[in-house]
C-alpha cells in the first residue's frame, strides 16, 4: 500500500509542474496568436496542436532526438549540467509538451471572446498595453484558461508514452502513477494496479468536473 504513495506523489509533482509551465507558456502563446494578424497563424496553430494528435511515443522519440545525450541539444545541455533523460524533470517536459495544446487552445478561445472594445476603453483611460493585458484581457479570460489548465493537469497526470520514452521506469525516481500501473500489471500485482487505477480515475474525474463547471466563462463570471 505504501508503495503507491511514491508514484502518486511523483505524478502529482510532475503534473503540477507541467501545468504551471503551460499556464505561462500556453497563455503567452495563445495571447500572441489571438492578436497576430497573419495567414501563417493557422499553420502555426496546427503545428502547436500536433502533440494532441501524434502518438505519445512519437513525441517521446522527438524529445530523445532533441534532448538526449547524443541529441541535437544534448552536448549543450550536458555542458550546462542539465540531465533530462531518466530524470523526473524529463517527465515534466514530456507532460508539458503533451498537455500544451489543451491550455493554448482554451486560452486562445478565451482571449478571442474578450470584447475588444473593453480593451480600447482601457487604452483611452490611460493604460499601457501590458496593463490592459493584466487588468482586462487576462481577468476576463481567466475562467477559460483555468478550465484548460485543469484539462491539462488531468492529461499530464495520465501521461504514459512520452514519459516512458524519455524518463524511463525507475521506481522512486521516474516511475509515475501511470507507468507504475503498467509495471504492476506486468508483475502480476493486480491489487496495487487496481488501487492506482482507482486513484488516477478519481483525480481525473474531479479535474474534469471542475473544468466543465468553469468552462462557460460568460455565464457566471460576474458574481452578484
Amino acid at each position, binding site marked *: 500500500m505504501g508503495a503507491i504513495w511514491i508514484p502518486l506523489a511523483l505524478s502529482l509533482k510532475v503534473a503540477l509542474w507541467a501545468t504551471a509551465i503551460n499556464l505561462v507558456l500556453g497563455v503567452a502563446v495563445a495571447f500572441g496568436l489571438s492578436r497576430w494578424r497573419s495567414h501563417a497563424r493557422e499553420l502555426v496553430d496546427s503545428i502547436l496542436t500536433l502533440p494532441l494528435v501524434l502518438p505519445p511515443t512519437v513525441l517521446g522519440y522527438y524529445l530523445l532526438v532533441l534532448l538526449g545525450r547524443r541529441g541535437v541539444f544534448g552536448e549543450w545541455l550536458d555542458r550546462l549540467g542539465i540531465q533530462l533523460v531518466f530524470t523526473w524533470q524529463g517527465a515534466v517536459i514530456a507532460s508539458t509538451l503533451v498537455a500544451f495544446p489543451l491550455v493554448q487552445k482554451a486560452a486562445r478561445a478565451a482571449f478571442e471572446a474578450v470584447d475588444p472594445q473593453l480593451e*480600447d476603453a482601457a*487604452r*483611452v*483611460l*490611460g493604460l499601457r498595453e501590458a496593463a490592459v493585458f493584466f487588468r482586462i484581457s487576462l*481577468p476576463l479570460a481567466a475562467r477559460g484558461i483555468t478550465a484548460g489548465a485543469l484539462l491539462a493537469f488531468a492529461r499530464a497526470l495520465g501521461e504514459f508514452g512520452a514519459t516512458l520514452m524519455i524518463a524511463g521506469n525507475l521506481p522512486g525516481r521516474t516511475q509515475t502513477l501511470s507507468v507504475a500501473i503498467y509495471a504492476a500489471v506486468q508483475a502480476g500485482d493486480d491489487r496495487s494496479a487496481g488501487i492506482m487505477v482507482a486513484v488516477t480515475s478519481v483525480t481525473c474525474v474531479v479535474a474534469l468536473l471542475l473544468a466543465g463547471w468553469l468552462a462557460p466563462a460568460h455565464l457566471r463570471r*460576474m458574481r452578484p
Partner: protein
Amino acid sequence: MSVDIAIRKTLRADDRHFELDVAFASEHRRIVIFGPSGAGKSLTLRAMAGLLTPDEGHVRVDGRTLLDTATGVDVPPRDRGVAYVFQDYALFPHLTVAQNIGFGLARRWLNPRRHSHDDRVRHWLDIFELAAVADSYPVRISGGQRQRVALARALAVEPRLLLLDEPFAALDPALRGRMRHELMALQARLDLPLLVITHDPADVEALDGHTIEVRDGRVV
C-alpha cells in the same frame, strides 16, 4: 475649445469597401456629428481617440496635435487627454461600479481594490448618485445607471474633451429625454467640451450645438 480634424481612411473587409474622408473644424463647446448609421461617425470618433489610425490627415484639439501623418505624430490613446463614452458603455464586467470609475486613476498593472474607494471616486459616485450601487457589478444596475457610470469613469481622468458615441441610443425613450437634460446640466457645471455623435434628430435639437452632418464617409 477648438477641434480641427481632417482624416482619410480606406477600409476594406472582404468585398466591401468604405472610404472615410472627413474634415471639419469647430470652436463650439458642443459639436454634434449627425448622420445615418454606417456613415463613418464612429470611425471619426475612434480616429480622434487614437483607436484608429487614418491613412493620412491630422487631428488637433485645442491647438495640440494628436495626429499628423505628414510629420509622423501619433499620440497614443492613453496620452491624448480625450475621454470616450462608448455606445453600449463598455463597462468592465469584472469590476464593481466604484472600480470602474476609479479605473483610469490607477494606471499601473493592478485594478483598484474592491472596497477602498479613493476620494475622487467618492466624489464622482456622489455627483452621479451612484453611491448606493458602488459595490454592484455592471450587470446588476439599470441602463440609466450604466450610462452614468460610463460618464463618471470617463470624467474621473479629467479629460480635455469628452467624446460620446450615440449616448442615448441604448436607453428607452422615457429615460432618453431625462438623460439629455442631465448631460446638458453636467456640461454647464463642469465646463467641459463635448463631441457627440448621433443618428437621432431629437438629439441634435436637444443638444443645440455646432452640427456637422456626415453621409457616406463625407461631411455634407
